[in-house]
Each structure stands twice: as structure tokens, then as C-alpha cells.
């Protein structure tokens, strides 16, 4: 039902999606068929006599217990997967990135060589220090602030989300990832990218989708579309909510390291 998952954790999501959609699809078909078939078949006439049929404990038992059993399975699988996705404790050497939101743009901060983020607070926002990082925190010195996300393929990424004004929501649909950014607290989420941006562009379903989109764009004389991962805002946040996005690029790990090494540290930028 969904486009291909671009995160490894999202694969189980897709399984669960498939199971759930098959189930509700079948039930939907049967129920709608019965509703309309019975309505047609038993439509009123002078000769018809309705059957006096007030209850049946057996039937009611069946249709209480059957959904209950099915739900136990769905709930079980769902909770197992939820635990998988939300538990960030067991990953080794994750990339730690802070995603920072404000009306109406995104920024990001990489934890640098020590892989630990310096703390932040709105009171530190001043001049170049647009994310309010506490520069007296020694962990902050080597942090790197960027406006586009680069992620390494195959390595777990831990996101910490902050907001400086209203609620935002970091929505990365391709990765089956979403988490609110809440002023006054740090929220978190994590996943492991499965395909580089280039590999995604080469997937048949993505190629097909791009061709369709470009047919429309060509007709309007607009610039052609090339697939990119995106981070969108998905919590109403003000007038330009509809245009609050950040590009995400997934690359091989060596390329990622190279890119990161080229970014200036906060100490270099803020001074």
C-alpha cells in the first residue's frame, strides 16, 4: 500500500501494513456486500413478512470472540514493532543529529568528533548562534550546524528534535518516521537508512512515479523533478506551514564522513 520503505526499521511496518490492509480489505468487502445485498434482497413488499429474530447468543459469541482473537495478533505484532522502532538503547555507534525547527525552516546539528551534542536553550540564541547552543558546554565545540541533512546508509541515526517557537513535526515519509518538535523539551526518534538517494532514484517504482510527475511538470513548463528524500513539517505551525521542508541526502558511509569533515564546527562559525 505504501511506497517502498527507505529505512530498515520501516520494513516491519510494511509487513504490518500489508497484514492490516488485507484484513480490513476483506472485512470491508464482505460487510459492504452484505449491507447492500441484504438491502436489495429484502426490500419491502406487501407479501413479505419479516422474520422475528431477536437474538442468538451463539452468533453474538462468535462475533465478539473472533475480532478479539484477530486483534490480539494485530496488537501483539504492533507492539513488538513499536518497541523495535522506539527503543534506541541498543544501537552501537549511532550518528547523533539534532533537528531544529522554527517558523518556517529546519536546521540540523551533527554531534561532531565526540559524537555528543552540546546542550541548547533559547536564551543562547544570538548572532550566528541561531540554534541557541550553549557554547560553554565542552561537547558543543565540535558540533556542526547545517541546513541540509546527510545520512549514511546502513548506520543507525539517532535524531533529537527541538523547537524554538511552536509545535512542529519532523515527518520523513520515506523512512516511516515522524516525531513532534516540542518547545521546552527534546524528543527523539531513530532509524537506519536502507537505500542511498541514488539507489532510490534507480528503483523501478520511483522511476515510474518520476516519469508521471515530469509529464505534468513538462506540460506546465516547470523544472523537472528528480527524487530526493524530504523532511516535511507535519504539525500546523503557522501561515507557511505548507512550505517548511529540508532536503535529506543518503550516501555511502565513506562519502558521508567526507561530507561531514568538510563542514565547519560551531567554534569556527560562532567564535
Amino acid at each position, binding site marked *: 500500500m505504501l511506497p517502498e520503505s527507505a529505512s530498515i526499521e520501516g520494513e516491519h511496518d510494511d509487513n504490518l501494513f500489508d497484514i492490516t490492509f488485507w484484513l480490513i480489505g476483506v472485512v470491508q468487502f464482505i460487510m459492504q456486500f452484505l449491507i447492500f445485498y441484504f438491502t436489495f434482497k429484502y426490500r419491502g413488499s406487501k407479501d413479505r413478512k419479516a422474520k*422475528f*429474530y431477536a437474538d442468538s447468543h451463539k452468533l453474538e459469541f462468535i*462475533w465478539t470472540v473472533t475480532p478479539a482473537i484477530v486483534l490480539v495478533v494485530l496488537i501483539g505484532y504492533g507492539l513488538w514493532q513499536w518497541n523495535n522502532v522506539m527503543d534506541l538503547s541498543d544501537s552501537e555507534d549511532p550518528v547523533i543529529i539534532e533537528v531544529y525547527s522554527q517558523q518556517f525552516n529546519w536546521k540540523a546539528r551533527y554531534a561532531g568528533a565526540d559524537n555528543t551534542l552540546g546542550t541548547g536553550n*533559547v536564551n543562547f540564541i544570538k548572532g550566528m548562534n541561531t540554534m541557541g547552543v550553549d557554547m560553554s558546554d565542552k561537547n558543543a565545540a565540535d558540533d556542526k550546524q547545517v541546513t541540509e541533512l546527510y545520512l549514511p546508509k546502513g548506520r543507525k541515526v539517532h535524531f533529537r528534535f527541538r523547537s524554538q*517557537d511552536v509545535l512542529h513535526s519532523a515527518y520523513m515519509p520515506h523512512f516511516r518516521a515522524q516525531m513532534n518538535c516540542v518547545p*521546552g523539551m527534546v524528543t527523539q526518534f531513530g532509524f537506519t537508512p536502507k537505500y542511498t538517494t541514488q539507489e532510490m532514484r534507480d528503483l523501478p517504482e520511483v522511476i515510474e512515479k518520476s516519469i508521471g510527475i515530469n509529464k505534468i511538470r513538462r506540460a506546465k513548463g516547470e523544472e523537472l523533478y528528480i527524487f530526493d528524500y524530504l523532511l516535511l513539517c507535519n504539525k500546523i505551525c503557522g501561515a507557511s506551514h505548507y512550505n517548511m521542508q529540508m532536503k535529506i541526502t543518503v550516501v555511502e558511509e565513506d562519502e558521508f564522513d567526507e561530507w561531514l569533515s568538510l563542514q565547519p564546527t560551531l567554534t569556527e562559525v560562532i567564535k
Partner: protein
Amino acid sequence: MSEHHHKETFVTKYIFSQDHKMISKQFLVTGMFMGIIAVLMSMLFRLQLAWPDTSFSIVEAFLGSHQTDGIMDPDIYLALVTIHGTIMVFFVLTAGLSGTFSNLLIPLQIGARDMASGFLNMISYWLFFLSSTVMLISLFVEAGPASAGWTVYPPLSALPQAIPGSGMGMTLWLVSMAIFIASSLIGALNYIVTVLNLRTKGMTMTRLPLTIWAFFVTAIIGVVSFPVLLSASLLLIFDRSFGTSFYLSDIFISGEVLHYQGGSPVLFEHLFWFLGHPEVYIVLLPALGITSEIISTNSRKPIFGYRAMIGSILAIAFLSTIVWGHHMFISGMNPFLGSVFTFTTLLIAIPSAVKAFNYVTTLWKGNLQLNPAMLFSIGLVSTFVTGGLTGLVLGDSALDIAIHDTYFVVAHFHLVMGVSAIFGMYAGIYHWFPKMYGKMMNKTLGYWHFWITIICAYGVFWPMHFIGLAGLPRRYYTNTNFPMFNDLADINVVITLFALVGGIGQIFFIANFFISIYRGEKATQNPWKSNTLEWTTPVEHIHGNWPGKLPEVHRWAYDYSKRVDADDDDSDYLHGKDFVLQTTPLLEGEEPS
């Protein structure tokens, strides 16, 4: 009461009336008026979504300074969806639905002369009227009405710097809601007291029609959950106007750090959804109650599994108060809480499934009188199933993170609570119009109304599932800034066309309603050959409902097509006809059903 007639003036009869039948009509007409406004708003923002770059003179005419050359401004788009949601959920489907039918039917179906307190009932309506007025006034303030979404999450709703609608518009929104909640609580207490105390002789709880069970339980849910929204609103008012920090902390906006420290928006989300989720059932249960009654009457069969239906209403009511967190899986709350709420949420599928199966079984081997009320009731079962099933996706936290706040959610809740509850309301109006106005509504117009409405409802909301799965967020003013959504543009046009036709199609109903009041065919006392007590009152309304003594009840409400020989479907009807009024004593040797 009927013994001591007061002299009625125009004012006491039509305006400050304490008669539940008149108050019911007042709720209905006010609710319809608010509904028309909310539907017009949805048509405006659907125009924007389908043709974001096109200039419309209608937009220019309606939105005044909130548009540029016939294209609406982004913040007024958000205001329109906010007010559309607020009005539909609270003013139409809570007050319009419960206010109309609880008021009309509770006294009439339990055999009471009026509500326990006619005076409070009148106050309830006038508070509703006042809150509607305040909400409508908020549409005209300079910076525009509240625009933080109908859920009004702070800090967006708390800070005018964040969005213009969070200035005076939001203040009026909160004032309106506080008055609304007072109205709703007074009404609900009245319904509960009336059902518990004023049932006529023989009307035991297990002989109550399912409508009354639904209204009764709805009122209880309201009393449990609405005060929490009132508290949430009050704290928000404090934060906005008196500088407290219940929901706000660490905010930097418009170039300065605000003084708020230590609050959390997540607290507001908890408080809001503690009402917000039960609210879904406050909206839906009365519609299901109405449907149970109408499907049984028009199938000429008892409702299947009467006690299971009561049980599932109670189970839904109980569960509805412990599932609110499923709106907050990605709010940043502890994931363990997410697990608990997934568990409780998916459990609601069980009583909901029981209800759906019981409706279908009631249709089975019936003698279906497919009048407009019946069609809308069957339509409700259809949309309730369609919308309810996708709840299994959204209620599952692991899946919700992928499609939370996309159009999939919009499709889900519109079908399961919006369209279903509206269908229940329409069904109720077609069915009880003869009781309310002593006239019959036109059937042909009713059929047109039904078919246009159900086709357009599915035409609007079915495709939304797919654009949601494709990842399109809701509450986007336009999605042209995302090339990845370009291929959804055509679907948006289709949805808008259905929305426009469906919206305009409601004229069939409005016209039918008002013309029938004046020109409709005169109603007979029991036009649908129904068992319940309201059809034993005279067609002309009188204060106190029954001219003589109150009726006495001898049986449940669902003895339709009862046979002489219970095991032989070909045997004669036990009472010589296919319905038996609740006032009919048991025949000698007759088993109560």
C-alpha cells in the same frame, strides 16, 4: 403539568420556551444554520486545494481583506479549516445532534411530560445560542478567527506573534467554547436526571429504546469529559492573558525570548484529547442510537441483540475515556504510554464490530421499508464500517507514525464520525419530522438527497486514503511546493468536484425541510407503524405531551412481526399486525421478548 396551563405568548412559546419539543427544534435550526456555514467554508478551502493558482470571485466576495486577487491567504486557509472543524464537531454534531434528539425523544420515548428541568433546558439552549453567536462574531475580527486547527494546540494558539488568528479571534474562540461547554453540561445533566427519574410506569431500563440508551450514555460521557476541556481552555486563557506558563516554555519568537518557563504543550494535548476522543463518541453514539431505532422499525424486525447493543454502548463509552493518547503517539510522550494506548484503542474494535454485525443481521430477512430515513441509516452502517476499519491502522502506534496527520487521518475520521453522524442526524430528521412539525417530508426529494450525499461522501473521502498513504500532510494550504506530490493534483480536483456537488446537493434537504414545514402532507399519528411511545402522543403538540394520563409500558420497544408460533415464520402476527406498541399489554400466555 398539562393541568395548569400558563397563558402562552409568542415569546414564551417560540423564544424562551421551556417545552422540550420547542427547544429541540431550536437546537435543530441553529445547528443547521451553523452547519451551512461550516459546509460553505469547506467548499471554499476545497476550491483552494484543487486550483491553488486560480482566482475566484467568490473567494474575493467572502474573504475580503484575507485574499489577494481572488486567491485566499495562507493564514485564512488555516482559519477556515479550524472553524470548519470546530463548528462541525461541536456546534452541529454535538449540540445540533444531541440537543435536537435528546430533547425531543427522551421525554417522549420514556413517557415523561417534559425534561426534569424545563428551565435549565431553556438555559442550555440559550447558552448554545450565545456561544454560536460569539463564534460567528469571531469570524469578523480584523486579524481573522482562530487558525491553530480545531485542536488549538499551544504555543501556536497562545501566541499572536505565531499566527494572526491567535489574537482576538482565539480569545473569542475560547470564550465561545467555555459557554458552549456550560450549555452542554447543563443539557447533559438534565438528560441523565430525566432518564433516571422520569420513566413512566413499566419503562424499566431494559425496555428503553436504544435511542434513549445512546443519549443517556452520551450525556454521561459528556459530563465526564467536557469539564476537562473547560479546564484546558481556562489554563490556556491564563497563559494567553495573564502570563502563566502551563503550556509554554523556552520560546524564542519574533526576535525575542519570551518569559514562559516550565510548562509543556504536551499537557494541553493530554487535556484536550481527554475530551477530544470521547467527543468522537459523543457525536457518534446518538447517531448509532437513532440508527438502531430506525433500522429496526423499517426492517419490521426487532433490533438484533438488544442487550449486546446496550453492552457495546457501555463498553465503547468506558473505553472511549482511556484511549485519548492514540492522538499523541508522536507527541514526544513516553513510548510505553503509546503501547498502552494502542492496546486500549484497538479493543474498541470489538464492541464496534458487534454493533456493525448486529445491524447487518437486523437487515437479514427483514421487510425493509426503504424510506429516506432508512436509507440514511443503512448509509451510516456503511460509512461506519468503512471509516471504522481504517481505525485499525491509525490506532496501531507503529503504523500511525508513518501516516499520522496525513490525509489518511482526514479520510478516517470524516467517514467514521463526520459522515456517519451526519447520516444519523439526517435519518433522525426524516424519521421524526412528522413528530416535530406534524407534517411529512417529501420522499422524492429525500431520495435525491440521500443518493447525492452518499455518492459525494465516498467521492470525497475514499480518494483521501490514497493521497494520505502517498504521504500528503493535512492542513497544507497548497502542495504545489512539493514536486513529489504533483501527481496528486488531479485527485484533489476530483475530491473538490465531489465536495462541491455534495455541498450544493444539500439544497435538496434544506428546501425539503422548510417547504414541508409549511406545505408538507399532514402527518398521521404513527406514520412509520412504530412501537415507541412518542407515536402515542397527538400530532398537534401539547404542553405535557399526553392529554390524559401518562402511558403505561408493558413490553420492550422491538416487538415487530412477532408471531403466534415463535418457531414458524409463516404463522400469523401475534397481535394481528406487524408492530405492537409498548403500551399494549401482554396477551394471555405471551412470552415477553
